[in-house]
């Protein structure tokens, strides 16, 4: 039921993820942020089993930080993606992690890039990608309307189209989504798309 998707535009990459924490039929939380800021110019959007998702992405994040401390240079997006895939592959036949990852990043030389890494350690550099049941609706929508030189506004329109499609067609559609963007100015939250507002005052 977890919907994660993303695309690359002109000098930026955008990822969107649903924000529901689900346990069988119960929705424990509808504002759980599943897109982790890996470092200043990288994002990881992850979907999968709750323990694995947090533990594995934090593991990747700490190792990326460690590399930067040791070498004084940040990893490129491609290197981080390959490291992540390597960790998934090593664990695969012993103690596999059930996490699907979309890694988005911006490097000065390579520009914006998006990597599709699934739970059996497949790695692809892509222009657009999606995971979960929502992918059935978002992939075709993105295939139809995507162009490689989209501006941020056009890309957000496309993301909203996908969210609308997921909301109207997926039988148990997640109520809320979060959108994050990474470009030359860094990785940051772009916005939320809420259809169910929680009663409490503060979003945790």
């Amino acid at each position, binding site marked *: 039921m977890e919907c994660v998707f993303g695309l690359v535009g002109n000098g930026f990459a955008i990822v969107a993820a649903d924000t529901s924490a689900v346990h069988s039929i119960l929705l424990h939380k509808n504002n759980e942020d599943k897109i982790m800021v890996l470092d200043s110019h990288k994002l990881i959007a992850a979907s999968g089993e*709750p323990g694995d998702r947090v*533990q594995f992405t934090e593991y990747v994040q700490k190792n990326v930080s460690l590399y930067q401390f040791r070498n004084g240079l940040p990893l490129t997006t491609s290197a981080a993606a390959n490291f992540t895939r390597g960790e998934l592959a090593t664990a695969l036949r012993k103690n596999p992690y059930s996490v699907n990852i979309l890694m988005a990043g911006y490097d000065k030389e390579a520009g914006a890039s998006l990597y599709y890494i699934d739970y059996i350690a497949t790695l692809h550099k892509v222009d657009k990608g999606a995971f979960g049941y929502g992918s059935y609706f978002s992939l075709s929508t993105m295939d139809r309307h995507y162009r490689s030189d989209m501006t941020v506004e056009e890309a957000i329109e496309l993301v909203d189209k996908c969210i609308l499609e997921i909301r109207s067609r997926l039988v148990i559609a997640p109520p809320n989504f979060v959108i994050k963007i990474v470009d030359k100015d860094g990785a940051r939250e772009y916005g939320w798309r809420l259809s169910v507002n929680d009663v409490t005052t503060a979003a*945790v």
Partner: protein
Amino acid sequence: MKLDTSGFETSVPTIGFGSSSDMLDELSSVPSFDLPHTKEFDGFQKKAVDMLKHAKGTTTLAFIFKGGVMVAADSRASMGGYISSQSVKKIIEINPYMLGTMAGGAADCQFWHRNLGIKCRLHELANKRRISVSGASKLLANMLYSYRGMGLSVGTMIAGWDETGPGLYYVDNEGGRLKGDRFSVGSGSPYAYGVLDSGYKYEMSVEEASELARRSIYHATFRDGASGGVASVYHVGPEGWTKLSGDDVGELHYHYYPVPPAIAEQVMEEATTE
């Protein structure tokens, strides 16, 4: 159906596993493997994993409001259809300012909460300051994550008050950890959510919040067969936790829904013996 594996058992190896006569010198090292005692080779692994996914027959809840954290739970322990106890303590006192709730395996929850209490105390001694609720729940989540897939059954909420104010985290045996304002765990949790969500306001007073917690547990025990016994309510404030009430849910039922006295239309007279 037990498979006949006698062909695999040899006391004197005549043919080694892929090697020749030097195996005779090493009598004890014939590689062999046990076949699983099952008819279905394809599905038994998944079934074994599913067997370990115990249903958590209980109702526990906790929520943050203006006055702190309210924690409540029922007290029934069931083994399938048998009620083994109506007086289980499902709210575990980790230390004077942190509480944990128990759902799932009683032994697992009690042990790991006690273990967490030890780790929290060690943290205090090593760092000369109390551990935060976030830190304590992360310690527990990491411990449970390292045992994932091994059949632990723990669905717990860690509630406490630290320097940042009230804190509430949900931690389960799959290693998931969620920060939130309202949680309910157990087989009766959907029923409890129904009452909790509709009656919740952040600005409640302590009395209103404890009444909401008690009512939610009562309604869950009414509908869920695996929950019952006594509804305990605890409050965690800036000074630590206090137990507010412990009411038998049977009595609560008649308190909330009293039976009006029946109007007798005709009274039968006692037959007199003569």
